[in-house]
Structure formats: C-alpha cells, structure tokens
C-alpha cells in the first residue's frame, strides 16, 4: 500500500470513529435532548438549537380539550431533529406497548424510548416489564431504546433480543445527582454490543463529560438544561462537555498513579 492510500484509510477510520450509529442511522452529535419542563416552546427550541443535538425526546398525553391549540411539536423542526417518542406514564408492559403504537401512528416513524416506571416517587424503571415490552416491540419492528436501571444483566438481555441501544440511568430522573451508578455502567459499557446512552440524573456538564470519558456512546439530558438559570447557555455548555469527554475517551487516558511522576526533568539542577 502506498502512503497516500494509507493516509486516506486513516482519515476514513477517523471519520467512522467519531460517528454514532444507532439502528443504521448516523449521528454526529452524541447529546440527546429531552423537551420537558421548559418555560416556553421558544426557549426549548433555542436550547435544542444551541445543544447541537440531532435527536429530541417527546411524551404522549391526552389533548387538553379546554386548551386544544397547544402544540409544542410546531416548535421542533423535524427535518433537523429526529423525534424520539417516549412511553412515559406507562406502569407496565401493556401500557408501554399501547403508547408505542400510538406514537408510531402519530409520527410515522418507529423509533421509541421505552420506559416503564410503576412508582411515581422514585420513577425507577421496572426491569421485568421493560424486557417484556421490548420483546413485543422489537418483534413489531420498533427501534427500541430502553431506559433501564444500571443493571448489566438486564442490559445484556435487552441487547440480545435486539434493542437498538441500552440507556442506563446515572441517578434518578431529574435528580441532577450525576453518575451514582458508575461501577455498573462500566460493566455495561464493557459488554455492550449496542450503543450505551446514559440517561437520567446527569446534572452538570462535568457529569456528562465523565460519562463520555468512560466510553459511553451518548448522553440524554433534560432537567439539567430545561430548568437551568439560562437553559440556552447550559445547552451549549453540555454540547462542549460531551464533545470534550468523547475526544478524551478517543485520545486515551494516560492513567492514574499512586505517586508523583515529575513533568520536568529530574537532572541538570542548578546545584552542586
């Protein structure tokens, strides 16, 4: 092989390395954005734009018959952002499957964030019902991105039945506590055959950077941006943190040592 083709091979490899691929679809941004809790549709749209994301989550709820004009979807440019409907509110597999089918009827796309949370206080996902729903939805042709506790055994079972990703939580939804499940997420990443998206609980850009440095493929952020003092600025901060964390992961850590390791030479000192 001559040098020229070697170089072009290298740059092709670099391009590949930097892209996230989920179910055959390529994403250049590794930050996904939730659309809940924004003060207005306008601030939501500006924050989405500032984040550089290419995928946004939405929920399904009954139309408010007293206020039928409210339509947040109009604020999202569907040419720029892939809609990822969630099954929030589902307490079991049956409810999640019903919401999934409604979401597909509404969007004419089959991507789905599967979440089953029976308990409204802690909002922790139900592993048994999530696996049950995932089995049904994968068979029905959905691209399933399941929200799960950071359980390596469950993550493996889900990827084995054909989910497009696994999305373990960092800490409870909306808690902003950061990476409380780090040790379990390390195992999930180590055995992953599908992209690992860290979802829920990342409260600051440093948390997102830490997740990306560990080798997570992407993160999903909602509360930390939507309820920040300046959501648009926070969206931009998360964008930079996710990029920095990913680049650090690709660059490779130089490792942690127990003792000092001088950066300046230990010879040639100006003394006798």
């Amino acid at each position, binding site marked *: 092989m001559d040098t020229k083709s070697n170089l072009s091979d290298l740059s092709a490899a670099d391009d590949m390395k930097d892209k996230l691929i989920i179910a055959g679809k390529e994403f250049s941004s590794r930050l996904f954005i939730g659309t809940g809790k924004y003060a207005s549709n306008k601030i939501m749209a500006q924050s989405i734009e500032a984040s550089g994301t290419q995928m946004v989550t939405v*929920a399904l709820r*009954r*139309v408010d018959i007293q206020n039928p004009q409210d339509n947040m979807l109009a604020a999202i440019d569907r040419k720029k952002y892939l809609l990822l*409907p969630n099954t*929030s509110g589902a307490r079991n597999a049956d409810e999640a499957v019903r919401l999934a089918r409604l979401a597909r*009827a*509404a969007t004419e796309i089959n991507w789905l964030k599967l979440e089953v949370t029976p308990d409204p206080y802690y909002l922790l996902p139900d592993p048994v019902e999530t696996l049950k729903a995932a089995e049904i939805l994968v068979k029905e042709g959905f691209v399933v991105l399941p929200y799960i506790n950071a359980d390596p055994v469950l993550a493996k079972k889900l990827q084995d039945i054909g989910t497009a990703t696994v999305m373990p939580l960092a800490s409870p939804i*909306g808690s902003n506590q950061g990476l409380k499940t780090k040790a379990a997420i390390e195992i999930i990443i180590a055995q992953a055959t599908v992209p690992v998206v860290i979802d829920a609980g990342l409260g600051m850009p440093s948390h997102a950077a830490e997740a990306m440095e560990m080798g997570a493929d992407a993160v999903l952020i909602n509360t930390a941006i939507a309820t920040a003092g300046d959501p648009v600025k926070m969206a931009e901060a998360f964008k930079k943190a996710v990029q920095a964390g990913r680049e650090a992961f690709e660059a490779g850590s130089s490792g942690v040592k127990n003792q000092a390791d001088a950066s300046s030479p230990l010879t040639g000192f100006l003394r006798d």
Partner: protein
Amino acid sequence: MAILKINGEDKIFENSVPSTLKNLLESLKVDEATVVAEVNGQIIPRGNFQNTILRDGHKIELIRFVGGG
C-alpha cells in the same frame, strides 16, 4: 341526547354525536394534524378520521405530543 366518552370524561350532545371523528375534532377545535386518536381502543390512522363513524357511547382518546424526557 347522546354521549361520547372523550379522554375519560362524558361529553353530552343534545341531539346526536358528531357523525365522524373528523367532525368531532372540528367541533372541539382540535387541529387533526396534531393528534392521534383511538376509538373504542382501536388506533385510527390519521387518513381515516373522515371515514370513522361515531355512535352514541363510543370511547374516544385524543392524544398528542407534549414536552418530555
């Protein structure tokens, strides 16, 4: 008098219920492009709203996207 159960609540009509799902959405001032509907537990594709005949006692769910994480 006729009744439709819409999103869990009874809605009473003086004479008869709107003849189709499309007519119901118009009477409620709901933009059909923004909703997905179920009639008696069956999902109605958006193109079929006009052909979906409503009768007294039908259960309707009108659902749309809202912000969520």
